[in-house]
């Protein structure tokens, strides 16, 4: 496989892909936590909003989400801003639109993972924390989160792999990530097979690394398994 000096370009794309995945992961986890809390809340309105969100987002293609936010993101944001009385033009950057699409998709799936994990926790945890005089927020941060985290790691690891692969979709709207750079190399050298194969191997590298890291986190989160090998 001869990349004719475009290897550097691919690596710069790989970097953008990693960046994109990590930033989307961050926002996606926040959305997921909020979503799961809403789905388990006592308020029927919050439950309805969260259920609609996960159902709709999990039912439409990620590509459609990316395209919608890329081509309609500014329009959408300006419409929301106008409800708050702000009527200037707002530009949604390429990277921001991509992160928004990926985070919204990841958030919908992670909502379900967090919800399952939260439901697995005995109710007594909440009750005893309340009896100790902790506020709900403090209970969440100190008691619930550390335990939910443990239960959620395997599921979140799978979702992160899906997210990594979904970052390739962003190339369709021209962000310079791995897939896009591979296309550039393919077009310039007329060797599409070599370049897409190189991209595929780099993606494979990322998914393998993710599997290893998830396994490590999983072992670390279970004291009884610490020191053993997967």
């Amino acid at each position, binding site marked *: 496989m001869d990349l004719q000096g475009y290897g550097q370009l691919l690596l710069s794309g790989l970097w953008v892909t990693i960046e994109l995945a990590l930033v989307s992961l961050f926002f996606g986890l926040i959305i997921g936590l909020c979503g799961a809390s809403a789905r388990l809340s006592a308020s029927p309105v919050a439950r309805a909003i969260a259920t609609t969100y996960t159902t709709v987002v999990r039912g439409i293609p990620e590509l*459609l989400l990316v395209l919608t936010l890329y*081509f309609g993101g500014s*329009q959408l944001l300006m419409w929301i801003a106008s409800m708050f009385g702000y009527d200037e033009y707002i530009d949604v950057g390429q990277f921001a639109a991509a992160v928004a699409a990926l985070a919204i998709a990841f958030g919908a799936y992670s909502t379900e993972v967090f919800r399952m994990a939260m439901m697995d926790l005995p109710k007594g945890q909440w009750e005893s924390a309340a009896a100790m005089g902790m506020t709900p927020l403090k209970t969440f941060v100190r008691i619930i989160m550390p335990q939910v985290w443990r239960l959620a790691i395997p599921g979140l690891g799978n979702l992160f792999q899906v997210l990594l*692969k979904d970052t390739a979709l962003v190339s369709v709207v021209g962000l310079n990530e791995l897939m896009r750079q591979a296309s550039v190399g*393919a077009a310039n050298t007329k060797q599409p*097979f070599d370049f897409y194969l190189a991209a595929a191997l780099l*993606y494979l590298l990322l998914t393998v690394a993710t599997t290893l890291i998830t396994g490590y986190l999983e072992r670390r989160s279970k004291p009884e398994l610490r020191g053993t090998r997967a």
Partner: protein
Amino acid sequence: MSWEWGVIWEYLPRLLGGAWLTLELVAVSGLLGLALAVPLALARASANPLVRAFPYAYIFFFRGTPLLVQIFLIYYGASQFDAVKESFLWPVLREPYWCAIIAFSMNTAAYTAELIRAAIQAIPKGEIEVSLALGMSKLTMIRRIILPRAAGIVLPGYSNEVLLMLKSSALASTITLLDLTGMARTIIARTYTPLEMFFAAGMVYLAIAAVMILVFRLLERRLNRYQFAKRPS
């Protein structure tokens, strides 16, 4: 924000035409993928490590890389080799339609093979021992016992895979096919109403997904009748 319902109604017939292609892609590659997945899963569940190696590598590659890369590898990649261009395969590999079908089938085969393998391994061991004790040949056992049992076990997981495939089929639009997403993009290029059209396309996807979930639920009731049967009182 100006929201035009009119433009959605005007172009809905064309969107539905795109939805038809989406359904066709999912159905054809779903069936091909299933046909490919069964031997892969059987080989993957084999006791012989040499037999296991190929399906393992295949599944590892197709599950570890983005579908978009796989599509481009086949659609753009194949043209790099003159040998392919001169062979009888070229009329097929030249067509974006067939490239999409090939990529989707191979991709879904990898995921489905893992599901089937898990299902095969979930069959109670006693059932296999009983069929051996009855003197069934290996092939008869696979055909009469293992596959029908695995089909019932795999169905809930497989319905998920089909829904994921429905969503992945949107990638066909990246190689110029006018599926539901591709059609929406074409219409937007003319009308410049991205939010309305993508919204409409999204609703059509949701409707298709809802129908699929229903069909699979009915199928599950049929295949796993024993789980839904009432106890005689």
